[in-house]
């Protein structure tokens, strides 16, 4: 049952017969051409921010994306009003983007391999993470675990959504709790950090991918400009907190231009494969250090009730030592 909002053309769905000025090199770019280059300036390589569904179309095998939970709808839990009420902001964002909140998730194939994919949309209230975004990230992770398929999250976010108060803050914990389970289940997780990935999104699921991929020059930082400017005044070097900065500081594995991102992901998916489960529901390569002989021998030695052998047998058997191919 497809659920669609009434929507008007979103502001980043440029009319194809018009021109856009590149904010980096100031070149005038014909929108149709810009779409063909995946909204990357052909002159200077500037990566324009793109809507979630455009991103998805770039990445997945054509027609393979099955959106899930498009009907999740944010709630104004706090009765939050700043210069205008939160519900008004939500409605405006929904009308301009055609989305109910700042993330889209679903399953798809990429290069023929099934994945669980969640993509954030900066056009929706700055890609901020409230309860719906957190819920979608969580469900994407749970689907990845259940189906033992890789999880891919593309982040583009100003951080936690202030209008949802500490519920928004709790999304850091919710999403990290899920990511910990993804890792414990030996399910691969690729994090793609697009411009910008900041605040609570950077400080939760975006920073802890098995492989962290950043788009060139993407702004990535925890402390927001205005926040840190108001608190600590210090000179920041050029390139500070850009993708290349994080590469050299060890937090980003790969910087990949948008034109190569799909191929890069396909290549990585060829390597990062969830190993099969053993008989008792644990990945065969699970990382827990359980040296076989010494602990089971100790049990026998220390429990001293006379049945160490049978206990050893159980202990060994329960670890599911199936022959390997």
């Amino acid at each position, binding site marked *: 049952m497809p659920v669609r909002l009434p929507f008007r053309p979103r502001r980043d769905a440029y009319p194809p017969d018009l021109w856009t000025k590149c904010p980096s090199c100031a070149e005038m770019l014909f929108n149709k051409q810009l779409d063909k280059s995946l909204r990357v300036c052909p002159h200077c390589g500037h990566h324009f921010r793109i809507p979630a569904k455009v991103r998805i179309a770039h990445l997945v095998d054509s027609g393979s994306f099955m959106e899930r939970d498009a*009907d999740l709808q944010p709630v104004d839990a706090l009765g939050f009003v700043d210069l205008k009420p939160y519900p008004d902001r939500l409605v405006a964002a929904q009308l301009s983007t055609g989305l109910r909140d700042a993330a889209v998730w679903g399953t798809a194939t990429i290069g023929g391999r099934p994945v669980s994919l969640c993509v954030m949309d900066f056009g929706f209230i700055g890609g901020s993470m409230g309860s719906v975004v957190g819920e979608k990230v969580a469900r994407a992770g749970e689907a990845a675990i259940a189906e033992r398929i890789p999880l891919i999250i593309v982040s583009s976010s100003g951080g936690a959504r*202030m209008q949802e108060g500490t*519920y928004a803050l709790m*999304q850091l914990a919710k999403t990290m709790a899920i990511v910990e389970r993804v890792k414990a289940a030996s399910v691969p997780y690729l994090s793609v950090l697009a411009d910008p990935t900041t605040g609570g999104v950077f400080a939760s699921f975006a920073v802890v991918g098995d492989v962290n991929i950043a788009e060139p020059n993407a702004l990535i*930082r925890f402390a927001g400009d205005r926040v840190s400017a108001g608190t600590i005044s210090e000179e920041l070097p050029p390139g500070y907190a850009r993708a290349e900065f994080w590469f050299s500081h060890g937090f980003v594995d790969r910087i990949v231009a948008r034109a190569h991102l799909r191929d890069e992901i396909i290549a990585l998916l060829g390597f990062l494969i969830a190993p099969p489960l053993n008989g008792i529901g644990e990945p065969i390569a699970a990382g827990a250090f359980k040296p076989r002989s010494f602990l089971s021998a100790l049990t026998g030695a220390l429990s001293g009730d006379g049945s160490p052998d049978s206990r050893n047998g159980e202990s060994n058997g329960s670890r599911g030592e199936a022959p390997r191919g």
Partner: protein
Amino acid sequence: MVDRLLGRPHAEGKPESPTAEVWAHVQQARNLKRPHTLELVKVMADEFIELHGDRLFGDDSAIVAGLARIDGRRIVVIGFQKGQDTEENIRRNFGLPHPEGYRKAMRIMEMAERFAMPVLTFVDVQGAFPGAAAEERGIAEAIARSVGLMSRLRTPIVVVITGEGGSGGALGLAVGDVVLALENSIYSVISPEGCAAILWRSAEQSAQAAVAMKVTAAEQLEFGIVDAVIPEPGEGAHTDPAETARRIRGVVIEHLDSLGRLSVDDLVEARFKRYRAYGPYTVADRPSAPVERPGIAHRLRGLISTRRSMPRFTRTPRTGPSGREEV
């Protein structure tokens, strides 16, 4: 900055407006004479051994951690540490932690797990240090991993918000089985100043932002983010730090007792479900209002006896297949 951090005692007379009242509460939460981790431990614990260092880069003086004996129990205590005067504040970097602080905390938490010791954290931080030194060494990564570790740590965790529960910097030590808060503490997704600067484009609207974010302990209790509020003595914790510590001690012991009766598996599963459930939303094709009844988090917290009220908003159960559409 020092001025702001030192805070101002709230006015003697009645605040003249609800906004002023909330702002007075914020200032109260920031009062540097409130007891911080080391002051609390000194009263609460019969014995305390501080441990130092992240084994990677440094020892962050804005986060302290150690082994404590409270009421005969061996526990691990980890918390933020502001200074009580300017000199100590400078030494403690105004209580603003760098990544090393969270990495030290993680190291000690893993030790707590290994030796079956419960973890008690004290949360009082404006936020992580927002400068380049913290950023480039991965404050975001440190907070994310600490939050993740706490979500799965196989030992009980009791969190006490004692002053400022500021943003991700606070959450980095605030994921637990029970989250308590001192009466005059605050908890917020961003500092009121930061919120005002972004949404009102003016830091002068900080009080208004504090009101809008519902930062007070009582409001956070209503939301179910906090499980119980601990009343402060006299005119506030800063007027009687020792009595404050004794009150915290009593409540913490009670919760350690309750949590100690659960199996580790049940404990970790309940903690997971608590955080998994946070955050209200509705489902568009079933446009009923958010259901006003206790949610998963409440049911789970029912496992442990706490004095608290109902959460006002809970997640609507997902009963049918979700909507799908193709791109």
